[in-house]
Structure formats: structure tokens, C-alpha cells
């Protein structure tokens, strides 16, 4: 009887979302993990957003360049109040960015060190004065705006966020509870790490929605379930193989080309990736204003690959070490790459490490090959930070220690077609794919679809058409 009582579904109308990783920090001045950033987009608003080609567009404010080192931002008239009832003014924007700069332990502070001064013009207008001219400055202003009075009170935004976004924070212990202001819809986000368990919870009716991080075989299984619906969309998160350009073998272009031709991307995408995964050529997708639709995908050709290695004077089999995390899908991909590369005379040794160790090794340059994904990249500055010779760790993301004077010159000119063509030709990264995004939900959930970068912005519109009771199957 007790068990039967336990099994009864709650007749509540909240929408439950099972996520892979709980947010770590809901203070936008600290948040760096994907889950926190996705939730913060719901709770806070920011000065700038991005359009479908990833060009910066006004969100809370419009802007104009007064001089190369001065930008004026004017807040819109119809801005929502903060969740504690106060209006959002230029004072709050100033307080947000000044408090960020004052934080010694914020991972975002370095991005704004170029701000020399922030001047309030009036309640709706403020000027950012820079030390050095930066044409991309406006698109960096994507930190959620916090209320000045709470900043001064040293409010705990990490655990009790207060913004002026579409969702208001309600409670956060094991689950994060948010309430949509427009209609009072309650949303509960709970961390469920294991993909099989997430699926079981969906089938049992304990959760309404899952997104991403599902092996394709589970997605195929879910597509056959009559009570569930599966939605996919093209992704923009770029998966790649990173190469150590200081390595005597890998610094040879022929070897990098050989590696690129040794991977049958189409087979992998068709067999083990979710639907809507597409092949990639460079970090930013073709629809991005700094992407390049002209670039051709590198064809799978193990014979050519072998020839390239032999022309470089490499004795076969070429032994290389590939580092990856312990994530099951990552390890699976590694074994596929290993099998494919063997056809081209490349003996890939897989070293699967726990995430912390793996990422530390990548940052230290302690690798030959590794596999990773860039998530949620919007600005073309990424090309400089990843391939610019001035951006080697600890000053940037050039983890492969790539040095190319010609590329540096193109990056300075911001000639994106030439930059992307050069990267594609030189292959400091071996491009793989933009993984498709997938969301699985109960049949009665409407107005939700996964977004290309995996964000959860559609929670702003999600609805439950009617409450159903889930009996045991």
C-alpha cells in the first residue's frame, strides 16, 4: 500500500526538466558552466543579444560608438522591473560591471579590464570608456544586469539570484525552482547525471523534458515511444580534434592532412550521432557572419592519407596518443577514430582521463591529440584566442601552441573569409562536426524546441497542454 501510494504521480502543473549537470553558480559575474549560463539567461537580462547570424543586437539597450574608446548605451523604455520590484536603470548597469571588475576571483573580470571608466549620463544612458580601442566591445556586454542596491548589500546572487528576466527564482536545494512571471508557470530543474536514468524518469513521468547528452541509440528508442516526442535541430557547437603544434610529427602539414583524411566523418555522423548533426569546416558555422560556407569538407580517403604520411617520410604505422575524457560517448568516438585511422596506417593509442585531469593536460599542452567541443561561441574573437600566437595559455585558448604569422596578420585585419580559409588549409584543428541538438518531452508538452547552441531559451514559452496521470506501464 505504501509502495502504491509512493508510486502515484503528483497532480501538479509544474514542468520538470532533468538536466545533466546542475548549475554551479547563478551569479552572472562568476558563472562559467553551461548550465548556469543557460539558467542565467532566463533569470537576468543583458545589454546585448545576438541575431541568427550571431551579430550583436540590442537587448536591454541600444548603443553607438562615440569614439574608438567610448561607447554610449541607452536603455530601452519598456524594461521589466527587477524581481524585487525596483526599476532597472543605468546605475544598475554601472554597478554590475564595476562590481565585476572589483572581484578578484571572477573568471569574467579579465574580459573587462579594458574598461577605464563607466559614466552615468542619465537614468537611461551611460558611457563606457575604454583604455584601448575595441571594435568588438559591445558584444562582450553579455553579463546579466544585477540590481545596484543588492550589490551594495553583498546579496548572495550565487544561490538567490535576482534579475529582471522572464523567470523569477523561487527555491534551490536539490532542485532549482523558477517561476515564469508572465503566467506563473513553475519550472523545476533537477540534476540526473546518468542518461539511462534520465530516460527512465521520462518514461515513468517523473520528468517532462530532457535535452542533449543522450546516446543516439537511446534517442532512437525514445522516438518509438508513443507517449513521448523527440525534437532535433541543427547544432552550432563545434567538435574537433586538437593537435599539439609543438610536436615534431604533428607540426608537419602533410601529417595533419593525413589525419584529416583518415576520419570518415559521414559514417560517424550517420551511425553514432543524433539527427541533424552536420559536418564542420571551422569553429563558427556557415550561417555565422564570420563563418565560411565556401569551405569544402575534408573527404575520407585512407589511401591518400597513407600517401601523405609516406611523403612526409613517416614510418608506418604512425603511433599517436589521443587523450579524451571518461565520458562514454567520447570514449566510443575515440574507439571509432582509432579503427578508422588504423586503415590509414595510424596507430592511435587512447588515453581516457577524468575530466579534471584531461582538461588540465590539454591546458598545459601535455598531449598529441585530444577531442573537445566549443560550446555557445558567438564572437569571431574565438579565432584569435584559439589560433593567435599571442594567446597561448595562460593568456588564451591556443592550447596547441600554434604559431602562424600569416594567420596573425589576417586576424588583425579581421578578414574572416581569409582567416577561416587559412585555418582550414593549415589544420591546427581537425574539424569534425556541429552536433545536432535533441530534446525529448512528454506528448503534452508544447512550445518547446532545442536551440542550436543547446540553450534553454524556449523555456520562456514551454507549456503543458493538460495534466495527465502516468500509470505504471
Amino acid at each position, binding site marked *: 500500500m*505504501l*509502495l*502504491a501510494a*509512493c*508510486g502515484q504521480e503528483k497532480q501538479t502543473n509544474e514542468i520538470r526538466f532533468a538536466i545533466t549537470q546542475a548549475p*554551479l*553558480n547563478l*551569479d552572472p559575474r*562568476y558563472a*562559467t*558552466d553551461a548550465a548556469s549560463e543557460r539558467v542565467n539567461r532566463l533569470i537576468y537580462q543583458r545589454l546585448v543579444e545576438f541575431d541568427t547570424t550571431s551579430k550583436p543586437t540590442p537587448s536591454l539597450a541600444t548603443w553607438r560608438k562615440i569614439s574608438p574608446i567610448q561607447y554610449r548605451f541607452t536603455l530601452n523604455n519598456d524594461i521589466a522591473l527587477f524581481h524585487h520590484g525596483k526599476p532597472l536603470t543605468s546605475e544598475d548597469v554601472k554597478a554590475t560591471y564595476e562590481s565585476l571588475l572589483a572581484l*578578484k*576571483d*571572477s*573568471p569574467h*573580470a*579579465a*574580459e573587462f*579590464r579594458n574598461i577605464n571608466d563607466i559614466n552615468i549620463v542619465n537614468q537611461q544612458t551611460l558611457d563606457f570608456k575604454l583604455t584601448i580601442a575595441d571594435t568588438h566591445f559591445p558584444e562582450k556586454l553579455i553579463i546579466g544586469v544585477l540590481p545596484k542596491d543588492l550589490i551594495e548589500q553583498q546579496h548572495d546572487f*550565487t*544561490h538567490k539570484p535576482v534579475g529582471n528576466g522572464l523567470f523569477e527564482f523561487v527555491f534551490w*536545494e*536539490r*532542485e532549482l525552482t523558477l517561476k515564469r512571471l508572465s503566467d506563473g508557470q513553475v519550472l523545476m530543474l*533537477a*540534476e*540526473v*547525471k*546518468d542518461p*539511462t*536514468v534520465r530516460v*527512465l*524518469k521520462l*518514461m*515513468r513521468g*517523473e520528468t517532462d523534458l530532457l535535452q542533449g547528452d543522450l546516446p543516439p541509440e537511446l534517442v532512437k528508442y525514445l522516438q518509438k515511444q508513443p507517449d513521448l516526442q523527440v525534437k532535433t535541430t541543427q547544432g552550432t557547437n563545434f567538435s574537433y580534434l586538437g593537435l599539439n603544434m609543438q610536436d615534431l610529427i604533428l607540426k608537419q602539414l602533410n601529417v595533419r592532412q593525413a589525419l584529416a583524411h583518415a576520419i570518415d566523418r559521414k559514417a560517424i555522423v550517420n551511425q553514432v550521432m543524433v539527427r541533424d548533426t552536420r559536418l564542420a569546416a571551422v569553429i563558427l558555422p556557415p550561417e555565422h557572419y564570420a563563418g565560411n560556407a565556401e569551405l569544402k569538407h575534408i573527404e575520407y580517403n585512407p589511401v591518400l592519407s597513407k600517401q601523405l604520411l609516406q611523403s612526409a617520410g613517416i614510418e608506418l604505422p604512425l603511433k599517436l596518443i589521443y587523450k579524451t575524457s571518461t565520458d562514454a560517448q567520447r570514449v566510443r568516438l575515440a574507439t571509432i577514430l582509432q579503427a578508422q585511422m588504423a586503415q590509414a596506417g595510424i596507430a592511435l593509442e587512447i588515453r581516457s582521463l*577524468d*575530466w*579534471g585531469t584531461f582538461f*588540465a593536460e590539454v*591546458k*598545459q599542452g601535455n598531449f598529441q591529440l585530444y577531442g573537445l567541443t566549443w560550446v555557445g561561441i558567438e564572437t569571431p574573437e574565438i579565432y584569435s*584566442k584559439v589560433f593567435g600566437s599571442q594567446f597561448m*595559455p*595562460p*593568456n*588564451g*585558448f591556443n592550447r596547441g601552441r600554434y604559431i602562424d604569422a600569416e594567420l596573425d596578420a589576417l586576424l588583425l585585419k579581421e578578414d574572416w573569409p581569409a582567416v577561416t580559409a587559412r585555418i582550414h588549409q593549415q589544420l591546427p584543428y581537425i574539424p569534425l562536426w556541429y552536433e545536432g541538438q535533441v530534446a525529448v518531452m512528454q506528448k503534452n508538452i508544447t512550445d518547446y524546441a532545442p536551440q542550436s547552441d543547446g540553450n534553454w531559451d524556449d523555456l520562456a514559452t514551454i507549456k503543458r497542454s493538460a495534466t495527465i496521470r*502516468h*500509470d*505504471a*506501464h
Partner: protein
Amino acid sequence: MISRLFQFFTVIFGVLVLTFLLIHLVPGDPVEVMLGESASMADREALREQLGLNQPLLTQFGGYLNKLAHGDLGRSIHTKTPIIELFKTRYPASVQLAFLSMLIGLLIGVPLGIYAALKAGRWQDIIVTVVSVRLSAMPAFWLGPMLMLVFAVWLGWLPVSGMSEPAAIILPALTLGFGLSAILTRMTRTSLLEVLNEDFIRTARAKGLSERDVIIRHALRAALLPIVTIVGLQMGSLLAGTVITETIFSWDGIGRLLVESIEKRDYPVTQACVLAVALSYVVINFITDMVYRLVDPRMRSGNS
């Protein structure tokens, strides 16, 4: 007793020194974890100074002990939550799961072990042996989802995972309890079989005691020592957290916290978790020693 207490505090101090040193010796840097890859050297140095990481190791250790003495375990690098607050929810969750799992293990394992010993060599013994070997061979990452499938999805009796309702503890406790019961069955059977061949059991039977009294009052009590040892060791492991089970069932215990902190290089949390785990082991061993004395009179008189 005094020597036991002295050992207890020596071990704790040793653990403190080791965890402090290990965290400072492993590759990686809390400053890098906090600031990411794009911070300048000046930013890094400023934070290092703020955190006191530029001070001599001995000074840092002194500061660490001083904070510990005041109940301050530090804060998580990522969530900024005081670690003591994390422990307030995580540790009781692990304790609850550990005790219920152990209870299930004992309720199944000890009676089955006694039964197998009494039927030694017969078909009942073979069946119990086969079942217990099978149970101990089932990994939590397989057994857990199977239990979920049957009891949550098919029968709809229990929640799949999480901690939002009291019944959510049943499946993780069964997952752990089944494995424990297998070990306890084997141990009880072996231990009891050894005791049943002892002279004092023959004497008890010769005195005309009923078989029930012989088993319960004489044999089982003598056979308890190895069982208590196993229970103590297993309890230590359970309190240290059972990472796989906690992860599968989204059970917010100490083991999951430890592993997550290692993955995220959240050094203060890792340090505090290791300390808590070590403390759990030491306390459980201490309690196990006390139980020995209760069970075996020879221990009380110091003759063992």
C-alpha cells in the same frame, strides 16, 4: 581505552597533514580553476595573495588548522557555498543510505548464512551459495537501473531516482543492500561452519541444549566476530559514499560530492570530503573495536 583515543587523534592528525599536503602537491592550481584561461598574471597573483596561497606551506597549514578548529572548512570554489553547509545535507544523506543498506544486508545476509551453514553440503546450501555469488557479482551500475525498470517503470511502485520523497531511498538501499547481503551470507556461513566444529558446541549439545539454543546462544555469538569486522569495514565504505549508486540514483551523498569535486578541481571540497571519509572510517573502526569487547569477553580482559 586511552591508547585507542590516542590512536584515534593521531590518525586524524595524520589525515589532516596528508590531505593538506596532497592537495598542494597534485598538479593544478585553485587560482587557475577560479579564473580560467584568460586571466592575466597580475589577476592571478592578486587572487593568490588574497587566498594566502603565496604564503609558506607551514603558515598555510597553521591557518587551515585554525579554521578547522573554528568549524570553518572553507568554501567551494565554484558554488561559493560554505562546505559545512554542503555537509549538513550531504552527510546525513549518506548516513541514511548507509544504515538502511546495512540493515537490508543484515536482514537478508545473516539468516541466509545461518541457513546455508546448517544445510551445509545440501541442495539448499548450493542454492544459497549460487544466489549470493550472483548477487555479489551484480555491479550497482547494472542492478540499479534494473531495479528502476522493474519497480519504478513497470510496476510504478517507487520513484526512479532523486530525493524528493521518502520512498526514493528504497531502490538505492536495495542496490547496495543486495551486494552486502551476499558478502554477509558467505561470511556468516563460513564463520558459523568453523564454530560448529568446535569442542564447546559439542559440549553444549552433550549438555542437552536444544539445537536452537546451541546455534543462537553459543555458535552464532562465537561466529559474530568476523561478521562484525565485515560489517564495520562495509559500514565505513558506505559512509564514505558509494559513488556509483549515489550517481545513478541522484542521491546527494558525500561520495558523489567527493567525485564531483575531484572532477571540477574544487580543492577545498575535495580536502573536506577526504577528511570526512577518513573520520568516518576511524570512528567506525573505533565503534567496531567497542563492539568486539561486547561480543567477546576475552577482549574485555585484554587476553586476546
